[in-house]
C-alpha cells in the first residue's frame, strides 16, 4: 500500500483539532484506523469461513502447522507495513503538511478566496518514478 508514492495523501488545508490536547484527536484517528483494518480482517475471515463451509477443506492442524515461505513472509511484512501506514495516517499527514509547506492558517484560505491576495504557497507535487 504505497499510496503516497503515486497520489497525494494529505488534503491541502490546516487540519482542525478539536480537543484541548490534540493528542486526543490523534489517538482517535489511530483507533478508528485500527478498527477499520480489523473490520477488513473480519470480512476476510468471514469469507474464508464461508468458502470452507461451502467447499470443505482446511483442518485446524494444517493451519497450526503452516510455515510461510520466504516470499509469503515478505508479502506479509509488506502487508503489515501498509497496515501500519493506514493506522498511523494521522501522524504521517502532519509530517506531510510540513514537507509540502502546507502550513498556512486556515483562516487565510477563507479570506484569500475573496481577495486578490495570492493563495497560500504550495510546493509542486513531486512526480516520483516507479
Amino acid at each position, binding site marked *: *500500500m*504505497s*499510496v503516497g*508514492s*503515486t*497520489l*497525494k*495523501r*494529505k*488534503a*491541502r*488545508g490546516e*487540519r*482542525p*483539532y*478539536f*480537543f484541548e490536547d490534540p493528542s*486526543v*484527536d490523534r489517538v*482517535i*484517528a489511530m483507533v*478508528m*484506523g485500527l*478498527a*477499520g*483494518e480489523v*473490520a*477488513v480482517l*473480519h*470480512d*476476510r475471515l468471514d*469469507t474464508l469461513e464461508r468458502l470452507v463451509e461451502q467447499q470443505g477443506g482446511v483442518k485446524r492442524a494444517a493451519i497450526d502447522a503452516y510455515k510461510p515461505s520466504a516470499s509469503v513472509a515478505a508479502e506479509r511484512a509488506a502487508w503489515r507495513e501498509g497496515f501500519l501506514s*493506514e493506522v498511523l*495516517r*494521522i501522524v504521517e*499527514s502532519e509530517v506531510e503538511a510540513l514537507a509540502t509547506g502546507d502550513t498556512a492558517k*486556515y483562516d487565510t*484560505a*477563507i479570506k*484569500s*478566496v*475573496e481577495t486578490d491576495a495570492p*493563495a*497560500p504557497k*504550495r510546493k509542486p*507535487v513531486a*512526480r516520483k518514478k*516507479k
Partner: protein
Amino acid sequence: MNARVDIPAQVEHRALPPVTHDEYARQEFVRTFKEHLVKHVHGGNRAVYEAKVKPAFQRKHKRAPKTRFEVRDEMVREPYYQMFSALLRTSQEMMWSSCQIPVARDLEALNKTIKQAQKKKKALGSLRLNPELPIPKYHTAVDIHCQPGGYHTEFMPEDASAGMVYDRAVHVYAMGQMGPFNNDMGASIVMWLKKHYPDFSPKRILDLGCSVGHSTVPYAEAFPNAEVHAIDVAAPMLRYAHARAEDLGVAVHYSQQNAEGTDFADGSFDLIVSHILLHETSQRGINNIVKECHRLLAKGGMMIHAETPPYAGMDPFDAFLLDWDTRNNNEPFWSRSHELDLKALSQQGGFDPALEFEDLIPSAFQVAQATRSHKFQGGDFGGGGLWFIYGNRK
C-alpha cells in the same frame, strides 16, 4: 432510526476502479462508520446542547443563543462535540484514503482503461481539454472537502485519478443514498422539471462544475433529443466523466472551462444547471457564474442550482451543525454561500428577480426507494429526502 433497507450497490462501469476483497471491505467499513456516526453519535450534540449548553448560556445572558456563532463558541468547549468532530473528520480522511488505495495500486493501467473507454468505436459525446485554463483559487487554496490533491491535480500525464477516487468516494460519502449511479441531484431536478414544467423541452443543456458527470447523465437520459454539455475546471475529472458517460452509453459533450466565463455563444442554452457547485466558489465567483448563466441562456430558458438549504430562518443550533463543513471539511465558502440574498444575486447577474425561484424538492432516489420497500428510513447527506434549489427564468 431503523437500519436502512434496500440500498443498492454502486453500478459498476468500465471507468470505476476495481477493488480487491480487502479494499472493498475497507470502503465498506468507512460507510458503516459514517452511518454509525449519523445514527448514534450526531444526535448527541443536540442532547448536550439542550441539557447543558443552552441552560448555562441562559443563566449567564438571560436569553437563549441567537446566532450560530454564539452556539459555536460554547459547543467547541464540549468534550462530546469535540469527540464527534474528531470522529467525523477522521471518517472523511479514511474515506478518501480507502478510495485512493485501489487507484494508487496500478494507476497507469487504470488510466489506460480510461483512455480505452473514451475511444468508443461509435463515439457518443466528446471531450475538449484546455491545459492553459487557470485553476481558480477556490480550488487551490485548500483541497475541497479534503480530497487530497483536489479535483485538478495530475499525478501522471493525462491522469484521471481524481475522478477515479471521487466516483467511489461519493458513493461511500452518501452511504449509497445518491442511488446506484450517484445521480440523485440531477435525477431530482429532472423529476421536479417534469412535474412543474411538463412541456419544457430544452434543446441544449449545460451542467456547470460537473466533476465526473454524476448529475449530468440524468438530463441526457430524460431529454434524449437535447444536446448536453458539461464543464469543469479539472481535467482529471473530465477525462473520467467522458469515459464513464461513453461506457454508460450516454452522449455528453465535456469541456474544460470555468463557469465564470465560458466560450459558448450568447443564448446557447435553454437549461443551465449546477449541483452543489455554488458553495465551492467565492462571492466574486458566484456573482460571475450567475452573470454567465444569464448571458448563456436563451429567452425563456432557465437556470437551476441545487444546494443544501440556506441558514435563514434555521434554528441557530441546526445552522451551527450544518456549518460544520466550513472549517472542518475544507469548504471555505460554505458559510457565506448559505447566507446569500438570492434575489439580489439574480438581479446583479442581469435576471428579472420576479422570475427568481427557490424550492425544497423531493429526492428522486428516496421517492423510488419508498415505492419499492415502503420502509425507507431517511439518513443524512440527502437523507432529509429534499434538495434545495435556487434558480431563475429568463
